[in-house]
């Protein structure tokens, strides 16, 4: 793909987040491994999209690129029609902090912080006052049924509770997009089902867009749009 052609791309009108002709190649000891090949994808406002695919198909890589955690080897990523691949680290960090939330397969809670402190963390990075962070975190944790677990350490919470704290942490800055990378992958079926219910309740209640990567067919069926990645392509 020539540079001239890439520059001539026009973002899709009305899309919240869009990947255009995104390719990702990992190079290791002179061996180039293409993971994504000319992927086009657009996420609309308040849309819930599920990406499926076999292991190594490039699902998480696409999610990381759309979440600005990784940069594409080629192609562009647009946020509300603005090319964000040109942004520097400070702009991207601020963007992630304010506009995006992340939930991973593993909860990744900081073990030295309580549930409440973990949830407050992104708010503090955003520069919100301690009082505001605390009040928002308490309110979110109560909403997720964890009002009795505020001062508990992550190690003292169950797997489902840990993942709910992680969701609360992802939502404290009221993001426009929530990225969930196999959020139920590490939970038993009962907790997985409860978490799925919770995610869709929050989606309806808070009005964010949801982009989820999962292997769970039952979970995928609940999404309005399901895409499957095969060998780096939809």
């Amino acid at each position, binding site marked *: 793909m020539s540079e001239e052609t890439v520059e001539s791309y026009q973002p899709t009108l009305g899309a919240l987040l869009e990947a255009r002709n995104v390719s990702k190649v990992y190079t290791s000891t002179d061996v180039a491994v293409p993971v994504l090949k000319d992927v086009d994808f657009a996420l609309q406002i308040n849309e819930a999209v599920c990406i499926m695919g076999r292991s190594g198909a490039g699902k998480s890589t696409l999610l990381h690129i759309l979440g600005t955690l990784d940069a594409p080897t080629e192609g562009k990523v647009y946020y509300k029609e603005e090319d964000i691949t040109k942004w520097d680290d400070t702009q991207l960090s601020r963007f992630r902090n304010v506009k995006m939330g992340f939930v991973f397969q593993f909860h990744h809670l900081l073990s030295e912080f309580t549930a409440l402190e973990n949830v407050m963390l992104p708010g503090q990075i955003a520069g919100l006052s301690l009082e505001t962070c605390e009040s928002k975190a308490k309110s979110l944790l109560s909403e997720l049924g964890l009002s009795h677990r505020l001062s508990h350490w992550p190690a003292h919470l169950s797997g489902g509770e840990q993942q709910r704290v992680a969701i609360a942490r992802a939502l404290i*800055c009221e993001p426009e997009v929530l990225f969930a990378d196999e959020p139920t992958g590490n939970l038993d079926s009962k907790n997985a089902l409860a978490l799925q219910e919770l995610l869709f309740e929050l989606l309806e209640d808070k009005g964010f867009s949801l982009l989820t990567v999962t292997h769970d067919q039952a979970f995928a069926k609940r999404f309005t749009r399901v895409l499957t990645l095969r060998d780096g392509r939809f």
Partner: protein
Amino acid sequence: MVVAMAVVSGVESLLKQAVMDVTGHILVMKPVGFDRDDTGMSTKLEKFSNTITGITPFLHIEGLSAHKGVVSGVVLQGVDPSSVGSVLNLRNRVLESTQNAGAEISGFDRFLQASQGSVLVGKELAKKLSLSLDDDITLIIPRATTVHKQGFTRQIGRFKVVGFLDLGKYEFNERYIMMNIQDAQELAKVGKTISGYRLKISDPSKAQDVGFDINRELGHPYWTRDWMEVSRNYFSAVTLEKTVLFIVLLFVVMIASFNVSSALFVHVLRRFSDISLLRTFGMSQKSVARVFSLQGLIVGVFGVASGLLFGLFLTKLVEISTWLYVPAEIYKFDHLPIELRWLDWLLIISASLLLCWVSSLAPARRASRMNPVEGIRYE
């Protein structure tokens, strides 16, 4: 570093004090000596009345001393009892005191009160000659002459020892004898001739500038020497030693700061997952780097604070210890002097903190450049 700098500063101060106490701040001399009633010079010095706070004549003679069969070369310092106290600080440097009519009287006062015939002897010289208080000491002054076939004649006098001097420098203590200037003049048969004047000025640190001004005012054949010039080599050596010591010890601190660096590197690797998570939630590379460099600085602050406290403890230990033997004949003093200077502390603190901060930059940069995707991939 604190102890080493305190000792070197202590040595420097000890030397400065010794030189100023014993020689005064400025010496005014003529190559052939001059008459004590030099009114021309006195008139010219009046211009400096605001700066000069004391003036006293002195006569410097080299000779021999003898007591109980031991002979030693000496420097006789003829001083004027009526004015010497206004220039030289000898009161605290005279060791022994004696009882007189029930009252304690210091050797220095005895020396001032005795019109003539008494001397103060350097403590090392006294030891060498086995002198005790009120002993008589024989002083011999050689005088060049063409009459005798040996080419010189000798003047001999006997004087009573009324006190011993601790002048702060070994080379002073092993050679100096202080006596009434009239006694010295009579002994040396020089009439009213003196070697020069010792001046005390209000600010000793300006002695060099004031000395230049006086020199310019008095003109030829007068010349001046300030207290720094008297022991210039010595002070230069101490300053050089202090600088070299600081640099060498700074290298030791630098090596220690590598530990801060390696500890932070390990910390960064252990915290890879947490750093990635913070990056995911919007912490910028700059902020991550700032966190780790701040951590390095905090480690530095604690390290420096505990080092200073330990150093302070050691300096106190050195100060009060009697078991630390310092050979006076080599080092010119017989105990380790300690002086804690704010400037030294400031230098030690700022250099150590700077090194700690610099050593934290590499791990901080490493932390900021980590790929967050790698850190959040696994638990």
